[in-house]
């Protein structure tokens, strides 16, 4: 490739931000002193340089968080440093919502207006902000700040929520919840505000908790405290019994993935371990962005070493030597906790060249997402780590064969990995005794909406939907439940009659519902469901990667159809419009490339199936 980069030079500040991530340029040809407006062509630097493509997102983050937006000269400078064509880098930068390619003030409030926050008055809040600060996206006052709407920030238990980002020499990113318009305005003005509470154990009965047992109890910053509370016993045990036994135990546990697709973890690991292609990778999917989901955030903020230890065990069992932890870009507190945990584990020899003196070598690289729900889809996540647009790949081939960088890859959800620890210490058989035949082990559920005590709750598989709502204190004010959203925006609405349904993979599947990512969002009789459905449609319209026609256009048509039903401006009769809605849904479900398009109509169609639920 003949890299063609012309135009004005990046500012010294922009360069310094990039160099801080990529190191100083080795020669003038990669963007140093010889660079001038007339010297448009940079040497491509060969294979080694192009292999650094995966540094593209970290470099874009560096400029975004230093300046507040990514100018064309800054983008060009990154292109020279990494030998990426400017058109491609522009395609990547414009894919992710957290990057701005046009000027944006350095201080931004990202205000959640997604479904759980709407139940807590987010739309009224945005209205207040529009009146007091001006429309979303417009610079406020001296142009130093602005506010933007955001999809679910994974703080639904504390709704309404906001994320504050301040670009500068010492960039700041902090989330806050619950928020009000005065608090947001004050924070934009002064940059000051109180921190939001750290996750706490919601459940009074903590005795049997496995996944949440340290959350809110053990200092998440201390490796010593982690070890004192049983941490790293599982890794020691894994090394003692060897990789093959670990695989056997995980298979015997019948653990199913908790990221939404419910794939048997043991099968996935064994398939990767058996691949002759090298190297193998382990990827932890911490891109949690399904509206209504916040369990992985709670685990990462409250017990970060557990994720690091479990990834190490996964690598040991599948013979991987490098792992990536891909964390959602809107999770600053969790990112900070995980960074600390990785650093401390490395310093203590629990990551690195010779783990626990066993000769086993493994390390973890943390990667930050940049505002794209689709990057939670495993193959889109790989593309993103590789420095590309988060467009899912066609499957087959599957990641166990051709995954990250084209190599065999284990990808697991944070909660899935958390289960591995007790499987290794207590044995797969004993884990399989917990729960039901088809759904073994403990499970986290994210309760939000109209419940008295929203939060993450841990139960053994088999608990019913009603049990969980009771655990969360039931519906406040004694109001009646109108409907419950299971599994998030990609899930389904169920009615009162589902309260007795056990929340297991098999029972929900039989009922045509889904557990998805463990969302239980309760809507009481006061909820405006048409508003909720329209926001869900908007979510998929915003988050579709745009690669395939059924989802790219279908998500628009679905949103338009709901809008015109709500506005009473139908194109055809109501019956014909509803047939059209179903056909849009079926084409998206049947013909889309990935799970986003395949589930984009799920919740909306389920709402229309419930008698009397939607009055449109």
């Amino acid at each position, binding site marked *: 490739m003949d890299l063609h980069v012309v135009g004005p030079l990046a500012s010294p500040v922009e360069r310094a931000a990039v160099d801080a991530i990529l190191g100083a340029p080795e020669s003038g040809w990669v963007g140093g002193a010889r660079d001038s407006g007339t010297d448009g062509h940079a040497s491509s630097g060969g294979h080694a340089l192009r292999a650094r493509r995966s540094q593209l997102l970290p470099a874009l983050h560096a400029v975004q968080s230093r300046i507040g937006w990514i100018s064309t000269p800054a983008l060009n400078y990154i292109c020279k440093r990494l030998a990426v064509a400017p058109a491609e880098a522009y395609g990547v930068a*414009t894919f992710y919502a957290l990057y701005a390619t046009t000027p944006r003030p350095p201080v931004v409030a990202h205000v959640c207006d997604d479904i759980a926050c709407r139940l807590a008055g987010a739309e009224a809040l945005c209205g207040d902000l529009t009146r007091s600060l001006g429309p979303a996206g417009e610079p406020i006052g001296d142009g130093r700040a602005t506010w933007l709407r955001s999809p679910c920030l994974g703080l639904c238990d504390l709704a309404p929520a906001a994320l504050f980002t301040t670009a500068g020499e010492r960039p700041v990113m902090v989330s806050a919840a619950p928020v009000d318009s005065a608090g947001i305005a004050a924070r934009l003005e002064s940059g000051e505000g109180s921190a939001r509470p750290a996750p706490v154990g919601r459940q009074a009965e903590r005795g049997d908790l496995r996944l949440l047992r340290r959350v809110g109890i053990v200092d998440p910053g201390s490796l010593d405290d982690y070890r004192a509370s049983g941490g790293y016993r599982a890794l020691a045990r894994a090394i003692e019994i060897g990789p093959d036994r670990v695989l056997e135990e995980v298979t015997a546990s019948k653990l199913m993935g908790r990221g939404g697709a419910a794939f048997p973890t043991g099968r996935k690991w064994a398939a990767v371990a058996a691949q002759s292609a090298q190297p193998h990778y382990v990827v932890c999917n911490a891109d949690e962005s399904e509206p209504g989901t916040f369990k992985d955030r709670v685990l990462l903020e409250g017990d970060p070493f557990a994720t690091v230890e479990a990834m190490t065990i996964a690598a040991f069992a599948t013979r991987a030597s490098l792992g990536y932890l891909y964390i959602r870009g809107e999770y600053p507190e969790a990112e900070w906790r995980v960074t600390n945990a990785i650093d401390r584990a490395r310093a203590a020899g629990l990551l690195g060249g010779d783990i626990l003196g066993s000769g086993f070598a493994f390390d973890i690289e943390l990667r930050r997402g940049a505002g794209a729900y689709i990057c939670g889809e495993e193959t889109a996540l790989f593309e993103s780590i590789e420095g590309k647009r988060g467009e899912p790949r066609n499957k087959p081939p599957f990641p166990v064969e051709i995954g990250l960088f084209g190599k065999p890859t284990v990808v697991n959800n944070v909660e899935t990995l958390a289960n591995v620890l007790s499987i290794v210490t207590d044995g797969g058989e004993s884990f399989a005794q917990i729960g039901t035949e088809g759904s073994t082990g403990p499970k986290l559920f994210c309760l939000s909406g109209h419940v008295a005590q929203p939060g993450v709750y841990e139960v053994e598989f088999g608990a019913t939907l009603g049990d969980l709502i009771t655990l969360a204190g039931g519906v406040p004010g004694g109001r009646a439940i109108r409907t419950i959203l299971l599994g998030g925006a990609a899930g389904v609405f169920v009615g009162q009659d589902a309260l007795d349904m056990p929340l297991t993979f098999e029972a929900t599947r039989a009922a045509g519902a889904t557990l998805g990512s463990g969302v239980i969002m309760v809507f009481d009789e006061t909820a405006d469901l048409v508003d909720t459905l329209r926001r869900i449609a908007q979510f998929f319209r915003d988050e579709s990667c745009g690669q395939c026609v059924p989802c790219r256009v279908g998500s628009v048509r679905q*949103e338009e159809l709901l809008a*015109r039903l709500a506005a009473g401006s139908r194109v055809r009769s109501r019956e014909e419009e509803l047939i059209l809605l179903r056909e849009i849904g079926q084409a998206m479900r049947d013909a889309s490339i990935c799970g986003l398009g395949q589930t984009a109509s799920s919740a909306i169609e389920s709402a229309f199936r419930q008698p009397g639920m939607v009055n449109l």
Partner: protein
Amino acid sequence: MTDQVTPNATSDPDVLAAILRSPPARASRPPGPPPVEAPASVELTIDGVAVSVPDGTTILGACGEQGIDTPTLCYVENLTPVNVCRVCVVEVAGSRVLVPACSRKVEAGMDVQTDSERVRLSRKVVLEFLGSSVDLSLTGPITPDRSIAAYAQRYGADATRFGPPGQPSAAGERDRLESGHHHGPTGDATAATVAQPTKIDNELYVRDYSKCILCYKCVDACGEEAQNTFAIAVAGRGFDARISTESAVPLPESACVYCGNCIGVCPTGALMFKSEYDMRESGTWDESAQTVTDTICPYCGVGCAVSLHAQDDRIVKVTSPTDSSVTDGHLCIKGRFGFEFVNNRPKV
């Protein structure tokens, strides 16, 4: 086979005469290519009919051998399938979702349905999605015998079901859209489209993204599949995704080297020779009055196959056969656009 006869072994004239009639095998030969093993064949069923095709064949290829016509939009022979348009989907027993015929390889025992209710519905709705959002009036020029309208008819696609088209975008408006929060529909019962003014910023070719179905062909041809220039890529996300140069600059400011390979693979007429565009605008474009002459590019020693499309004794565009072993259908700026000297020859 006759007995081996060795020269010098005899002076018998009859034997010598026999040798002259059929010369003996040469003692040593240059090494030939290793024997090519015929690929194993795979047995499957298509629409209930047992079929046997070589391993590695796509479902599309297998259907073709059966004489089953499959609509395709984002598939061209000379580029790796990207399977994004989804108009070619078929039903495979045991698969939860439909699969793209253009990229999926056949497997032993596969049970493929190409005309089931699910297949027909998805193909219909995909055609409606495209027809309601994109100007398909020229879609299909690289497969002229199969028009998109015929497929729309076959599947009963009615693109007006979503309401009349919404407002077109102003020049450059779609290039500035940011991912994340879009301005939602107002409920005015119109269907959003990608309509926008044609980008005319150079003398060689124009870009009318109102016609773009986002099939990635131009991006792949400009990038690692042919040209290796990487002047264009997909920018933005979802319905706002678009083909863009770096920072959406005009072509002359971009890395484009005007090889025109993107034009050669574009199935929709979104990318078009300026000569063709101007003639269409003035109403003089007439394919029935055109001749196509296959020849060799006169410029360099590579010997690229070029097809000269001429109307009224003037070359109006240049293509290259996709099955040419020299070009794979791809050219450079000279072969593609360097024909003006012919058009400007002095009249004798």
